[in-house]
């Protein structure tokens, strides 16, 4: 029988902007010297990938990494309304989560794992703080503008199969993307995200995973290769788990999870 190892759900951060986190403790006597922080995507991508990231956290904890998953302000279980989502705030949230896990585990070494927009935020946060040991970028958003255009395309596709909503969202300062509001502030901030313009390495060791279906060109791989980071690149035949499925199922790509765990174990023996 598999043992049930409960996680610890809790709130942290400043009193006016509480963030929700889930801490996965490794088994006793198997703690590695590096903590892992998982940076999730946002909006519908967060909902669709929650199951996979929860399993990733459990697998990483099983091999000895203390792991923290958390929700950004205005996302998931964290405080704030979805309309308040902003990139600078989310970067602050990543910093708050870094401080939290370091304080909670007493470990200085840190590995950030970011999926989609979480990958972009991890990269920017890594460049900002400059002391991240390792980083896994799983199909990160490279260009915020293209990402937003894709969201609009999905919204348009979705409207083919449902009645068109009547309300005028633009007059309220945001547009509706699959049930999540994107304010014009957020749009402008997203439009400025371009991982190809970062000059510093986001971490000492970087694993870039691109799923076959989602992968665009090699530009990010080439760009990161030009920084001082030790880069490993993997292109995997995995589904785009962050997209809505026709039957509402939530996908867990075992191959990607295994790759992340193996690489992290190699980087932090």
């Amino acid at each position: 029988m598999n043992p049930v190892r409960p996680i610890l759900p809790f709130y942290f951060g400043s009193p006016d902007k509480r963030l929700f986190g889930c801490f996965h403790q490794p088994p006793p006597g198997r703690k590695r010297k590096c903590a892992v922080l998982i940076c999730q995507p946002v909006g519908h991508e967060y909902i669709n990938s929650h199951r996979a990231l929860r399993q990733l956290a459990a697998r990483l904890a099983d091999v000895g990494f203390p792991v923290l998953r958390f929700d950004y302000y205005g996302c998931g279980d964290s405080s704030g309304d979805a309309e308040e989502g902003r990139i600078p705030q989310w970067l602050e949230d990543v910093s708050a989560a870094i401080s939290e896990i370091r304080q909670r585990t007493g470990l200085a070494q840190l590995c950030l794992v970011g999926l989609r927009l979480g990958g972009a935020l991890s990269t920017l946060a890594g460049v900002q703080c400059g002391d991240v040991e390792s980083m896994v970028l799983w199909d990160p958003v490279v260009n915020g503008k293209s990402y937003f255009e894709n969201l609009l395309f999905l919204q348009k596709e979705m409207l083919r199969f449902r009645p068109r909503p009547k309300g005028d969202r633009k007059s309220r300062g945001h547009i509706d993307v699959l049930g999540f509001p994107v304010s014009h502030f957020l749009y402008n901030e997203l439009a400025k995200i371009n991982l190809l313009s970062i000059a510093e390495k986001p971490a000492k060791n970087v694993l870039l995973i691109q799923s076959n279906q989602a992968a665009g060109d090699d530009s990010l791989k080439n760009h990161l290769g030009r920084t001082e980071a030790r880069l490993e690149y993997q292109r995997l035949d995995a589904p785009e788990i962050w997209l809505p499925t026709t039957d509402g199922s939530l996908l867990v790509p075992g191959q990607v999870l295994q790759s992340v765990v193996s690489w992290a174990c190699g980087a932090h023996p």
Partner: protein
Amino acid sequence: MKNVLMQKTPVKEEAVLFGEKKSLAGIVTYPPGVIDRWLRPTVILLNPGIVHRVGPGRIYVKIARALAAIGYVVLRFDFSGIGDSAVRYDNLRFEKSAVSETQAAMEFMKATRGSECFVLLGGCSGAQISFDTACCDPRTIGAILINYPVIEDEDDSADADLKHRRAAHYYWNFALFNRKSWGKLFSGRANYRQLMGALKAEARRRFAPPKKAPREAAPFQANLQRLAERDVRLTFLCSQGDPLLDELREAGGNDFRRLCALGTITLDIIPRSDHTFSSLDDHDRLLDVILKRIKAMTPAGNVSLNKPQIIPGAEDRSAVGF
């Protein structure tokens, strides 16, 4: 009615673990200020399918905060194997384990917050579990059942007619008004077999005398009757764009119509919405109806729902946010 969330009433939220092995994860949302828990039931939100306790489009967070803003304590949690709750290893069927975990949630809320009566709310399979729990647990005084799936469709071969009807629903409500669908039809790229089946099923439904009710109808109607006798208030909340609405009416039959007419059951249809309420306008309309219906399930003014009794520690804990 205005969406309460817009008023930004500060509510308090606390992450909790409960259940026999402390393996069920949830968030309790508290109203600001003093909780008059003797007057209001506690509301429990149940997972819609396998989506975790945040709900599609984060709608469960909005619902919980809007209800807390008008004085209700709300627990939204994950069934085992969903979201942050651990997997069970006892091979209990989901239908059974989910009801027992909902009861565990009630016990937890009673032990820690003194809650004695509950309104259950859930979408899709969460609606099913709400209904089943209401049937077997007298602490349930009401339930909001969102897109209640009255007909089981797990077995692929079970009901070809049902599939045709769902396809007909799609053609009638969406494809008919879609230029791309017409393009597919005239360019030979449409599924003509499915289209013919759907047209036949729709014609049968509209013009032929009603055939026998689905097998789920009899127990469903009996349970409706039983809940009505116990004075459990039920609200069926359906998306206009969801085929489950027709199935609900069909399976509910005359009993359903009669109980609706008596006001024991309410059926609210959210116009221009889909199964998962995937637009922000759907959220607003859904929230308005939920608030209205839950208020209506709450006895007014001085009628006490619970016997006032002091639960050791409950006072302190209910005041603790986060």
